[in-house]
């Protein structure tokens, strides 16, 4: 049983980004970068399945610049067995990422592909579903529990009304939500050790996959500033302010 895990390198989730004054994007220079938080849950899920004897190989794949090697090293330090970097400096849309991952899936033939539910930079929440569509595989998004037995996956998902449990045959795609598990922390020694694990790099350019963007990003703007608020001294004043707010509301 082989698991493929997709990990993206993003601006660290704790950093509050700033929009470039010329509206062409966000400032990325000299910011701390790390593995997309949801992907850490995906890697953790894969490693736990391997530790439980339910998987024997975990391949971590990342698509991006050379520097994305660092998130692959993190995945290897967490317990993945092999890393694969599809290297490109191009800005990729999610459809292109899904097509590149399909290429990897066609070659690697995994039984299960784990991804994060969304990348916290573009907040797209696309790639797992798109990859499942391209491969014609069943999908379970926003997973908070995964069980494997008899060639089937049973996955609990977080949905709008509560939780839903799906069962599907493998191969399948699962995207991780934050309550799936508690990802392990890896110290520097483990990252150093991970450097001896196999990590291959291939150029996206050589794969013959069209990654030309379909959309044009015209501008990127900061959110509107909120007006200065006021501090009230007592719960009674707070309640009166609520009452005043309700008085202003239009029916809807």
């Amino acid at each position, binding site marked *: 049983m082989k698991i493929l895990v997709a990990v993206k390198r993003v601006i660290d989730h704790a950093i509050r980004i700033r929009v470039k004054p010329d509206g062409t994007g966000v400032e990325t220079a000299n910011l701390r970068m790390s593995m997309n938080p949801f992907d850490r849950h995906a890697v953790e899920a894969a490693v736990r399945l391997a530790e439980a004897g339910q998987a024997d190989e975990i391949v971590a794949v990342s698509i991006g610049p050379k520097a994305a090697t660092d998130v692959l090293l993190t995945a290897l330090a967490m317990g993945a067995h092999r890393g694969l970097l599809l290297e490109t400096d191009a800005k990729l849309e999610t459809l292109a990422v899904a097509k590149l991952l399909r290429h990897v899936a066609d070659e690697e033939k995994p039984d299960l592909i784990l991804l994060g539910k969304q990348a916290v930079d573009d907040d797209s929440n696309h790639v797992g579903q798109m990859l499942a569509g391209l491969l014609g595989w*069943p999908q379970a998004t926003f997973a908070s529990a995964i069980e494997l037995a008899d060639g089937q996956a049973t996955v609990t998902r977080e949905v709008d009304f509560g939780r839903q449990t799906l069962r599907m045959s493998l191969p399948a795609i699962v995207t991780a939500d934050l309550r799936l598990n508690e990802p392990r922390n890896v110290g520097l020694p483990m990252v150093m050790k991970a450097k001896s694990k196999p990590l291959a790099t291939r150029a996206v350019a050589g794969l013959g996959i069209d990654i030309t963007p379909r959309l044009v990003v015209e501008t990127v*703007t900061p959110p509107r500033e909120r007006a200065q608020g006021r501090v009230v001294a007592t719960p009674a004043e707070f309640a009166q302010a*609520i009452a005043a707010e309700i008085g202003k509301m239009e029916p809807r």
Partner: protein
Amino acid sequence: MAVLVLADADLGRLTPATARIVAGAAELGPVDLLVDAAAAEEARSLAGVHRVLAAALPATADALAQLLAVLAEPYTHIVAAANASGRDVIPRLAALLDIQPVTDITAILGPTRFERPIYAGNATETVSDGQAKHVLSLRASAFAATVGENSAVVSNISPEVASATEVIAEVRTQSERPELSTAQIVVSGGIPLGDRFALVEDLAGKLGAAVGATRALVDAGHAPNDLQVGQTGKIVAPDLYVGLGISGALQHLAGIQGAKAIFAINTDAEAPLMKIADVALVADLFEAVPAVIAELDRLGIKR
């Protein structure tokens, strides 16, 4: 221009999101609304609907995406709500059609130009989409429903699609409170509430408000997952958002940026939510909330 909208329905009833995304999609062209047969009558009365396509809709994303792909041919735009079900199906559909989707749209600037938030709402992207078809999801919280009567034509269709996925269990959060993502008032609680989340429900009950929670409180098991507000949870845009014991992490703020007024109670005047609040009270919420409720009673506020 012709638009196919996937209605958002649950247990045979339209959710409040449907009327809002229909109103948004109607800006793009005449709307055909694909709906589960059980909700067809309700759907034909929605303002802005040109035609209702009623079908026994599959419960899982793989079959639903397949169905939408079959129906897609005559439409320029295919639209769903940016909620858990829309987010499940729209990207899969887009991949089947070889289209890059545009999702979580908060403003429609024209038939091919859209605004969407990125980086937890700390930036907004304006994109133009020159593809042959546009596969979109709209945030219901960003669009207002159109009021008015309608009696659109209903066409029954019987799609033949198969799912490789079986739904084996569902756990539903029971609540008397309004639906969170379209509510006019939302009262949310943070981690200090612990097992006393009932206090949030008390205040919400008084105000006819929906209840929400932070990820921290949900993770701790004190509130159900579908009440989580934020980047990973539900996006709300009420007229009034009241946050109790919430620090205002950027991932939480991502869910409330559309709120008209933000009120907060926190022991820490420096908490980020207090800094952006329109009205802030520095207090222990366990003392303050009962006093707030008492004053609302005295004022005769009841919704």
